[in-house]
């Protein structure tokens, strides 16, 4: 049962036992899709959800009769209006794309040609397929811009992609997809790359566009809550296979498949213990009035680009301090200052009561050891040329002079600590999954026997289920080793579930700090409230019922 009333008609798309195989560089064949079947009926929005790599994009693209290079269709059929797309010639496929089926990409920022004006790209579909003449296409595009509530719809098309914000681009991409009046629109995670506050705006725009037109859509996402707002039916995927399919209500409310259940439960926020329940102890890390940024220092003593502007914080021993804020607000910069990677222009860092030199080179080995940084992207944080054993072993040798047997057995202990088997120490990072890499990343930091861990969005790149496991691990380690975390995230739920205290940043400044348990208490800073209220819940009616202060949104969201 969906909230919006629309007529769901006959089957538009029928996917039958679709198989897609990829050939790797070494010539090995991998089945990406292992026989996927589903239908899309005219007028409904079908959601595909699953973890990263489960084959969502592959399915989405197959609806446009396209397989990425290195992949090919190895079986099954995709019927659109009863015609099998797999048997079409390249010419016929071209005629289909953008015209009958169109696509809204995951990252509009990357999908717009940086050297062409937006309008030219939006009307290109009409030009290619000869649907409309140029002037009519422009008029239609402007109409679409307006209906997607884009600012200054008449002129926005004359800008280049880099001259509009991410949220706007995402909506422009939707306009581009809609201009040919396609029968089917495929949305591939169109909001994943956006900030939560922005995401709401875009979701709303999409939803009304869908409703207005009674469109048929396939909406791909890994975020159940987002999908719940917009879809009629949901298909849950894992490893290229359908796990469960059903009405949105059913999937969200009464999942049948264990995997779906795991997904749902990972989504439920774990309430933090009230801050008061843990004894306040001495401060282990303090930052005072830190100003930092990039580029040459100007005459007023501030850097050219100020990323962190006068932030102070205190981290208690054995506690976790969460730092949240939208992308680009200076969270990572703050951590880099603490780690000494980016010397502050002014302000102090104090570790264990002793002030730290701003530059990492000037700090003592023991000072460095006590504070370890864990980066967001485990992909780039691990040297691809070193084995896991070496990566974890290096801090052991560096800080503790361990060698040979001793080092090896300690590496095994550390791997065990992050729940990984001992033989993984012979692997290279690229032979690990994302979650495993993040664990190695963590184990390397632990090898130094630190007091403080600086964690930079370490779960953001992980799937919800995996991320939940890593968070669990962090909590356990904190209990066992009395670690203190300075934990940066843009996801308020994650922070809430792990941290004792939360600090909110905006535009390089600290807005406020509060106990995690009090998040919903009154008298919060409006921006914090906006953040908290912008997170979708599994309730399919959430978006429709959402009331946000438009003034606030204009002030803080960059959509």
């Amino acid at each position: 049962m969906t909230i919006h009333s629309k007529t769901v008609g006959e089957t538009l798309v029928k996917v039958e036992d679709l198989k897609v195989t990829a050939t790797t560089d070494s010539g090995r064949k991998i089945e990406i899709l292992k026989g996927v079947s589903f239908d899309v009926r005219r007028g409904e929005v079908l959601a595909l959800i699953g973890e990263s790599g489960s084959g969502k994009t592959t399915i989405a693209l197959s609806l446009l009769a396209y397989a990425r290079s290195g992949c090919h269709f190895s079986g099954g059929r995709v019927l659109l209006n009863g015609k099998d797309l797999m048997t079409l010639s390249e010419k016929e496929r071209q005629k289909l794309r953008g015209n009958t089926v169109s696509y809204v990409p995951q990252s509009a920022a990357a999908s717009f040609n940086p050297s062409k004006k937006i309008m030219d790209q939006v009307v290109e579909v009409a030009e290619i397929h000869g649907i409309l003449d140029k002037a009519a296409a422009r008029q239609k595009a402007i109409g679409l811009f307006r209906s997607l509530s884009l600012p200054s719809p008449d002129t926005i098309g004359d800008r280049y992609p880099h001259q509009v914000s991410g949220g706007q681009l995402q909506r422009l991409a939707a306009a581009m997809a809609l201009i040919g009046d396609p029968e089917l629109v495929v949305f591939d995670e169109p909001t994943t790359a956006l900030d939560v506050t922005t995401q709401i705006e875009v979701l709303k725009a999409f939803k009304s566009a869908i409703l207005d037109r009674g469109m048929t859509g396939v909406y791909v996402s890994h975020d159940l809550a987002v999908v719940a707002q917009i879809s009629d039916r949901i298909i849950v995927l894992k490893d290229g296979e359908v796990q469960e399919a059903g009405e949105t209500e059913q999937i969200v409310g009464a999942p049948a498949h264990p995997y779906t259940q795991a997904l749902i439960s990972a989504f439920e926020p774990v309430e933090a213990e009230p801050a008061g329940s843990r004894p306040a102890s001495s401060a282990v890390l303090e930052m005072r009035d830190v100003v930092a940024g990039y580029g040459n220092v100007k005459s007023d003593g501030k850097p050219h680009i100020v990323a962190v502007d006068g932030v102070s914080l205190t981290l208690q021993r054995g506690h976790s301090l969460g730092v949240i804020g939208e992308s680009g607000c200076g969270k990572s910069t703050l951590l880099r200052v603490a780690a000494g990677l980016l010397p502050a222009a002014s302000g102090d860092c104090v570790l264990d009561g002793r002030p730290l030199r701003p530059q990492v080179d000037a700090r003592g080995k023991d000072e460095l050891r006590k504070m370890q940084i864990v980066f967001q992207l485990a992909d780039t944080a691990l040297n691809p040329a070193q084995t896991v054993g070496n990566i974890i072993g290096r801090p052991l040798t560096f800080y503790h002079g361990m060698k040979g047997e001793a080092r090896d057995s300690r590496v095994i202990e550390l791997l065990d600590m992050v729940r990984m088997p001992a033989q993984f120490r012979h692997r290279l990072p690229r032979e690990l999954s994302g979650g495993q890499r993040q664990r190695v990343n963590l184990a390397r930091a632990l090898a130094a026997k630190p007091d403080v861990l600086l964690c930079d969005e370490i779960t953001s790149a992980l799937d919800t289920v995996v991320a939940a496991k890593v968070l669990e691990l962090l909590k356990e380690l904190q209990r066992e080793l009395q670690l203190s975390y300075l934990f940066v995230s843009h996801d308020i739920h994650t922070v809430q579930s792990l941290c004792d205290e939360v600090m909110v940043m905006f535009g390089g400044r600290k807005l406020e700090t509060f106990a995690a348990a009090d998040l919903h208490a009154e008298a919060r800073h409006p921006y914090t409230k906006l953040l908290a209220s912008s997170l979708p819940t599994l309730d399919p009616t959430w978006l429709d019922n959402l009331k946000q202060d438009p003034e606030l949104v204009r002030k803080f969201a960059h959509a």
Partner: protein
Amino acid sequence: MNKRILEMIGGRLAIAILSLFLVSLAVFFITELLPGDTAQELLGQAVTTEAAAQLRETLGLDRPAILRYFEWIFGLLTGDLGYSHVSDRPVANLVAERLPNSLTLAAITMAITIPLALGLGIFAAIWKGSIFDRAISSAAIMLVSFPEFMIATLLVMWLSVYMQWLPALSFIPATADFRTIVLAFIMPVSVLVFGSCSQMIRLSRAAIADAMATPYVEMAMLKGASRSRMVLRHALPNAVAPIVNSVALSMSGLLGGVIIVETVFNYPGLAKLMVDGVSTRDMPLIQTCSMIFCGFYLVLITAADIIAILSNPRLR
């Protein structure tokens, strides 16, 4: 054009000028290090210590190098390229005789190479993986694997000596008509085109292939664009910077780097002039030629940089 672009272009020009200055220093003092000098070479077998010393004095070679450097630089800035004592003529005259030849050869080569190489590179990219693409790529590799002199000599052997179709020398007789001139240029230009083409084909194809792998080209495809539209309308405009850069690099050797061609075809160009200068220790000549070559290189590279800046819409 906005201020930022002007600033960046200004920066490029400043860097080019700075480089030219560094080059002048390097050129001057490296030539100073060459053993033997003009005086000795002028006197040849008849050299004696006293005679050489006397000649050095008359030529002003006995004064400190720094002084001569600044005189030289000042001369260059005021358009005085120096005096070649070896040939007893102003260097400007010597250069004026050769530079047009070198420029002609370079210009003809460029006029053929650039469209040809870019065309082949682009078509290879459009039909990536096709027979055409593979044939072009293999041909490019073959051509870069053979020494220039071998290609040149084989051409002469075949086209001049056996077939007698083309003159073996590109040394155009004083009284040449248009046909003769065209015939004379065919072989040297071909050799140079072979040499510079393959590099450029490979680079332009790679640059377009890079751009083809971007999400926005994939998006164009998903809009129903044909492959040629993807390449020409979407990939190419974004591959301008690397392509122009590769063109500049390949072309930069066309003045000074064509010594083999000038030798085999006996073409009176600047490279041979400089080699002559080296063997006769004609320092002002060597220095001027080096400066011309480096200047040419810098002009091309800077032009490529500027085109890259202008082609970047983020700066517009």
